[in-house]
């Protein structure tokens, strides 16, 4: 018991007497992952072919990775006085949290509000550039598919026109009339219309402007310290009251002669 109380008090002493941390600023914002279109799903008839440029779990995983955090710290232009502490803090505290499939909250701590903004700019640049590359690739593939369908549709139209001319100029043969060309052309036109319409759904990843980044500071760790102190106070009080009650009851049971 004594050992437990001793280590608890020692912990309190170390923690309460240790040098207070320097003031820090906490930045938080939410960005929206851009959307793209899954052309395979669209052609297969899916009702919801829209998806994010990158899945939210991958985005969170990327931001949490040591390599990404190192890149952010290396590329951020921190203020000279606080650069050392900001590098440590941003590397250790940069976190992403998926609010839903499209919105990701990012949060980190730095040595000053300017350092928060510096790190934020690098994070937004990194993610926006990465997603822009991915989106560009998707848009290219979508455009290729649209061009293919347009070409196919034109070709089908030519064949259908030629077939109709033959029917018009000669006596219609019932076997010649039995063809799926019209239906295929219709389906191709429909897919082309859908593909062209979904181009409007494609949107890049957007980070809010720096002015909308919520930066809270200067912060200190006093809440934890004071709360822990309150708890310790109650604990010590309980132990003291328990000892007094035990002493009183034992004296009452065994009165001194």
């Amino acid at each position, binding site marked *: *018991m004594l*050992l*437990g*109380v*001793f*280590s*608890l008090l*020692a*912990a*309190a002493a*170390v*923690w309460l007497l*240790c*040098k207070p*941390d320097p003031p820090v600023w*906490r930045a938080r914002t939410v960005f929206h992952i851009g959307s793209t279109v899954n052309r395979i799903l669209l052609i297969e008839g899916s009702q919801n072919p829209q998806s994010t440029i990158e899945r*939210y*779990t991958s985005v*969170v*995983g990327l931001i*949490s990775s040591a390599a990404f955090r190192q890149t952010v710290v290396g590329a951020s232009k921190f203020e000279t006085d606080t650069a050392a502490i900001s590098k*440590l803090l941003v590397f*250790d*505290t940069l*976190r*992403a*949290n*998926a*609010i*839903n499939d499209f919105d990701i909250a990012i949060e980190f701590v730095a040595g000053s509000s300017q350092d928060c903004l510096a790190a934020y700019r690098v994070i937004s640049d990194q993610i926006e550039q990465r997603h822009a590359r991915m989106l560009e690739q998707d848009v290219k593939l979508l455009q290729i598919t649209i061009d293919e369908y347009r070409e196919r549709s034109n070709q089908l139209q030519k064949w259908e026109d030629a077939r109709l001319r033959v029917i018009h100029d000669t006596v219609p043969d019932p076997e010649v009339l039995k063809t799926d060309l019209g239906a295929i052309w219709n389906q191709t036109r429909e897919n082309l219309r859908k593909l062209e319409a979904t181009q409007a759904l494609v949107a890049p990843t957007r980070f809010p402007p720096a002015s909308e980044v919520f930066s*809270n500071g200067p*912060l200190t*760790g006093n*809440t*934890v310290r*004071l*709360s*822990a102190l*309150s*708890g*310790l106070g*109650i*604990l010590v009080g*309980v*132990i003291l*009251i*328990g000892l007094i*009650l*035990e002493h009183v*009851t*034992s004296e009452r*049971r065994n009165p001194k002669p």
Partner: protein
Amino acid sequence: MISAGEQAAVLLCGGSFFVFLFYLAGRRPVIFVCFFFIIFTLAWRMAATMFIDLEGPVYSSQLVRTVGPGTATVVHAIAYLVTLAPFLYFFRRSAVEAWCADVRQDAAQPGEITLADLTFAASLILLGFLYFDLVRRGTIPFFSKIERFNYAGGVAHRWLFRYGNLVTFWWGLMFATGYLRRRRVDWRMLILLGVLAVYAFLTGNRFSAYYSYLSYFIAPWAAVVAHQLTNQSKPFAWIGRSLASSKSRLAASCIAIILGGVVLYAIYNNLANVRGYQQSEIWHQAFERVLIQPSEVGWDSFERIFQRGHADSPAVFRFLFEEPIEPSRNTSIQYLMFASIGEPRASDQIRGGFQFAGGFPEIFFELFGPYLAWPFLFGAGCITAALSAVMVRGTLRGDYASTFLALYLLFGFHIMYIGGMLNFVTVQSYWIKIGLFSLALFLEETLARRGLQLLPFGLLRVRQVRNRG
């Protein structure tokens, strides 16, 4: 990264909690045995919180974010100690000695049908029906690779799922009573526990079922430990006394080895065969389940309350008691999940029958803020310690009605310590249980003055016919 001073504080606070538990196990075994169910959980969570604090940031796949580093251990360790401190008073040596003076040791008469006999017979019927129903349905989760929560089972299965802990507590109570009265081990109760363990294995249970059934079974054994305790006892001497004979030591070793093997295999089977994880994924999942998931919600709440200062008591109160996602279930973990992973994922998971681990002590800080939570934590600890004391005293005195009802009330607090649940007090039936408990206490005291018992161990005596010539 946290500073060296904070790291030292985390290590010392966590260490002091484990030292305290070591003290309880060695010097105050009555508390350790009767409250083992919660003590084990607190120890596990403490280890997980320390890991997150010291090794963070670590990625949590359930929260889809990284957690740690920090100093959550400091607050949580003190909260656990504030919870356990009242036990030192309610289980003080003089009180335990006074209970032991009232112990009932009148052995059953020959031909007497006892409460233990009745329990054994009724339990055999229950277990028989459980197995019959399992075979009749034709789907055995272990062989069909079904998750335990996806197996609906029959009426008996659902009843056991809900009240299994109370059943095993009653078996444990009969087991301890048999030892106190007759000085011999009632193997029938151990057999019942073994048969139930096999059923739990077949129905896809992994660790938690064995842990809770065993914890509730051994809780009444605290009375035996109290009865054997003397002032001159050396630390951990109670273990030697509880396992005095070579037969009991052999049985305990066999049970521990078999149970350990079964639990490990059940966990592996679930991860590899039921959930289909491959090689390194199995290890990764087990690692995350052991060292991150027990405390990830607690750490997230710590960050929200203590680091960001986002305590919003009225909103938390409204969510917990007025507008939860599922009012009939634990609303505390619903709030913590909602605050951690947001909507619609929280609702989707809760309505799908899945919930995260954790809830205590973070829900107290969410509801009452970082300072006011402490007296409430202490108050909850006092009620829990008092009910546990009634349970152990009742086992010694043979007051089975109040002992069982004390455990029934305590069960609500156990759920609070396991999952943070606070809305159990708002359920009408809980107050009926309190009324029944008070009535049982009153009747037992009144009848005891007349030398009678509300629920006697010896129920009726069968006249024995002697063969002459």
